[in-house]
């Protein structure tokens, strides 16, 4: 149980129209090397801020207190090389006027020191690994020619191109429909296992998190409410808020809300 990332007393505040807004308050958390950790919370919980803080992507207007250390790395991490980041909206993270192949090859070339032809060969392998249909022609395709799910596969390929230690998926499946979401979650699980990556999975969906993660951290209003193994969080939450989130999940086995007697058909 060695920590890849060690977060101590992390506080992040934003300035908005003269007011100081705290997005994260005194967060202390270890991300264990090789684990799949889910961060769940509702809007305004600070879960995305945490992901951005770990990746060093916070906007310049934010003030950061506390420490984020990388004992598992022994040096400062490099985004793209040590951290792969998958955003919610693949259309926004992919360059619309650059071919898929070039976008992935560029990551491999920059961080692995490959030549362009080696990098393109690597890009093709990666497109095969993310199970994009017809990787040969996809290399020369542009993002707008792909569906939302396919674009997210490309974004994942680019994120893992340099063989990062940590893969961060920030609501990476929220914009996709249920079937594609399940496929992408299965893909992430498979890739993480194959490459021995550590996964930080940010989601608002506690059921989705429970399916993928070994541990779950529950956030609310910028604070860490509860952290534990998935089984413990789902079966025996200690905090009322976690209980509320679990109860609010409407699964396929949930009791119907509908009073059918009300319908006079």
């Amino acid at each position, binding site marked *: 149980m060695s920590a890849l990332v060690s977060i101590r007393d992390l506080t992040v505040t934003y300035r908005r129209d003269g007011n100081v807004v705290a997005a994260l308050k005194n967060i202390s958390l270890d991300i264990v090397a090789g684990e799949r950790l889910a961060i769940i919370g509702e809007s305004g919980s600070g879960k995305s801020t945490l992901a951005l803080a770990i990746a060093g992507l916070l906007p310049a207007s934010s003030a950061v207190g506390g420490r984020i250390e990388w004992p598992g790395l022994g040096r400062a991490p490099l985004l793209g090389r040590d951290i792969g980041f998958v955003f919610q909206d693949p259309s926004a993270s992919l360059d619309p006027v650059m071919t898929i192949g070039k976008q992935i090859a560029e990551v491999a070339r920059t961080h692995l020191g490959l030549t362009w032809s080696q990098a393109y060969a690597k890009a093709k392998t990666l497109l095969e690994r993310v199970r994009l249909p017809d990787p040969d022609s996809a290399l020369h395709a542009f993002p707008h020619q792909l569906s939302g799910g396919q674009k997210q596969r490309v974004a994942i390929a680019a994120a893992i191109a340099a063989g990062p230690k940590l893969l961060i998926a920030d609501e990476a499946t929220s914009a996709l429909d*249920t079937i*594609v979401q399940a496929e992408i979650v299965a893909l992430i699980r498979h890739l993480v296992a194959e490459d021995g990556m550590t996964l930080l999975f940010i989601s608002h969906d506690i059921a989705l998190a429970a399916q993928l993660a070994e541990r779950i951290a529950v956030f609310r209003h910028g604070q860490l409410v509860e952290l534990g193994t998935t089984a413990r969080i789902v079966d025996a939450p200690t905090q009322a808020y976690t209980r509320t989130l679990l109860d609010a999940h409407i699964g396929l086995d949930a009791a119907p809300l509908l009073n059918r007697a009300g319908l006079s058909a």
Partner: protein
Amino acid sequence: MSLLAVSSLTKRYRRGGKTVIAVDDVSFHIEPGETLALAGPSGSGKSTIARLVLRLIEPDAGAIEFESDDFLALRGATLRARRARLQMVFQDPLAAFNPRATVARVLEDPLRIHGIASRTERPRRIAALLERVGLAADLAPRAIHEISGGQRQRVAIARAIATRPSLIVLDEAVSALDVSVRGQILDLLLDLQRKERIAYLFISHDLGVVRAVAHRVILLDAGRIAESGDARAVIDAPQSAIGKALVAAAPRLKGTTQDAS
């Protein structure tokens, strides 16, 4: 007599020289006070059907009968007047309101357009509508972008019920809400249905929610009806390929094999 009867509805789009059939020969009906859910993956045509039923877009073929009238034959002022009976709530309440609007203006529009309340009477009616959806009346002067997502969706529902409709199309109306808010909004919708006998065309990709709130469900795949029937019966034992895939893909809190891939 059905409240809404849709038969052989078809809508094609031309995209880059190719014709895409978004809705292909779809027929269904909704009874007063009933919730019919449309579910399916993205691109299955559920939102297109919603917009066709509301006559926000026009079909290429088919018929829509609403409250015993040929809804597609209505034009101009007659159509606008009839819209009072058929309302809609969108997925993203922020996008569904004019960014410059206040809560009061959003609720005043339907009252004014359909002559439901005189100018002097409107503030009282707006307060009553806000109260009906569980909001404080003093929210009225606030700007839409200032209030929370859950409050906004309640305002959207208040706007939809302002004209006393018999049918409300809910296009992913709870999908963008936080889970803790989602339950409250669903409770509100069911309460309105019970008391005012409003029917819902409930469009959602979330089978769990569909199973919990709908009487009947239609599963769509590539613009066609793949399967339909009693919501719980269909979702508990889907027969179609798309139904099986949707059920298998729904996230589950328990009973999942942690390390299968």
